[in-house]
């Protein structure tokens, strides 16, 4: 069998951009590639993505990156050292713990909070909203009133009440934040569903005999995903701040966990003379929030549901 081919084999790029995909996989990957190109055309969005990738890497390789232990500090000789001190790049806190190491390990907590809230709140909101929007009538009314009830609570206040009832701790903080985060997603999903519901392609699927469940889950929900992904990403910054706020109030992560909000709280006392103890975690929160915002903005442009082959 000869290895020579008549036409040169396609480059990967050509394969992805081909207008004659040979398999579902090729079609899906091609489409994803087009979305990536749209996204990466936006410099700031890529910056946001890089920030978040850095966050993930730092969290994953914390054991190898952190120069010191985040929990055990040098009480005797290294309390409240300023940034730039020998061996302590960002200084130390009042218990002699290296702030840089605490930030690095704290990134795991931040990531965990963000991921858990997204995993809990987004699907709940999506399902509630899509079902309400498609079903209409009293199902819609009941689901939306429930949504309104949760929406009426200020996030932080409800989270406070929750952790006050269940006790402080980062798990409870996550649940509390998730409970208050899902209503806007339900609203978004419902709005998209109302638009999609009357389209001809949904009518066509109904005319095939599809059950309402099948229509909602397989045909309507995919249309809601873009808006939802963008909204969730943009909400991440707020979630981090809420978790930090809870930590600040002592109701989220408990010491000695290096949660960034808790670090700000405990550093509050020294802010005039030893500003770095509270400021460094604040800067970390700022950068990560910024990353999520930039990413969310970029996704909004890239995931435009009106994909016309322009």
């Amino acid at each position, binding site marked *: 069998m000869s290895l020579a081919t008549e036409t040169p084999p396609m480059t990967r790029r050509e394969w992805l951009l081909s*207008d*004659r*995909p*040979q*398999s*579902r996989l*090729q*079609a899906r990957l091609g*489409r994803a590639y087009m979305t990536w190109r749209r996204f990466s055309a936006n410099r700031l969005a890529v910056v946001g993505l890089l920030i978040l990738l850095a966050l993930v890497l730092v969290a994953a390789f914390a054991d190898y990156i952190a120069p010191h232990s985040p929990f055990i500090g040098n009480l005797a000789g290294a309390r409240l050292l300023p940034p730039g001190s020998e061996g302590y790049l960002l200084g130390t806190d009042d218990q002699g713990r290296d702030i840089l190491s605490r930030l690095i390990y704290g990134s795991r907590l931040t990531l965990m909070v963000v991921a858990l809230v997204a995993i809990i709140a987004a699907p709940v909101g999506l399902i509630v909203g899509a079902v309400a929007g498609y079903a209409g009538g009293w199902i819609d009314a009941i689901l939306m009133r429930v949504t309104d009830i949760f929406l009426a609570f200020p996030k932080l206040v409800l989270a406070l009440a929750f952790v006050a009832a269940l006790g402080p701790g980062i798990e409870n903080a996550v649940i509390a934040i998730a409970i208050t985060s899902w209503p806007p997603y339900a609203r978004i999903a419902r709005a998209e569903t109302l638009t999609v519901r009357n*389209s*001809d*392609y949904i*009518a*066509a*699927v*109904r*005319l*095939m*005999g*599809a059950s309402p469940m*099948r229509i909602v889950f397989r*045909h309507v929900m*995919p*249309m809601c995903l873009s808006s939802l992904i963008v909204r969730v990403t943009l909400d991440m910054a707020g979630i981090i701040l809420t978790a930090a706020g809870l930590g600040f109030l002592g109701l989220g992560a408990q010491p000695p966990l290096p949660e960034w909000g808790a670090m700000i709280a405990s550093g509050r006392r020294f802010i005039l003379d030893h500003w770095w103890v509270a400021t460094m975690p604040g800067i970390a929160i700022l950068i990560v929030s910024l990353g999520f915002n930039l990413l969310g903005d970029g996704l909004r442009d890239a995931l435009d*549901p009106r*994909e*016309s*082959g322009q």
Partner: protein
Amino acid sequence: MSAIVSVENLSVVFDDFTALENVSIDVSAGGSFGLVGESGSGKSTLLRAIAGLAPPAGGTMRIAGLELRGRDRDKAFYRAVQMVFQDPYGSLHPRQTIDRQLMEPLAIHGVRDGERRILKALDEVGLGSGFRFRYPHQLSGGQRQRVAIARALILEPSILLLDEPTSALDASVQAEVLNLLEQVRRDRKLTFVMVSHDLGVVTHMCDRLAVMQGGRVVERLTADDLATGRIDEDYTRNLMVASKGFRRHAEPIT
């Protein structure tokens, strides 16, 4: 002459608006029936009511003698009656490949050998297998409409409801799609109920017509009658004259 689609005194009301008022039509098996009218005449509503997409407020509808209730339709109905929609840009799911969209009716009805059927369906409408994994936005209007026709035919129905299937297409593409529909009808011995505002299209494709205006049937006649001018109603006559085209410096029609 057995009527395979029979509508008697059908009324459809949306909130306060009466879209159809006491409309009756009969379509014989294997025939091609046209519904003609301008916008607001209710012709599309009639089609959607038969399909179960619009709520009837009175009257009866029968398919092959079996009465249809309200908007409830069973799977047997969907295997017998299918619809082709007007807007090729709205009748295909924007996020699913053609393959997936053709597979869906087969999956819902538990039909095996989907692979073979999909390839056959694409072939029947004149699209090669290269189209199978494309997304709708990668197809032209005419190609999308062909996919819509393939999708409607894949369950092998006996009755096809066509809601202005070529209005949104260019003239040359329209001719191709109309030819395809004719061929499909001939090959599969289908019954057509076709809605159009274009008298040329409807007289070309259909044997018998009902002219509608403001939710009512104004006149029933054959395509032949229309073409030769054996028209009773003034409204129908006006439509005929208007369809013939513009005559310069002619008096405006009041």
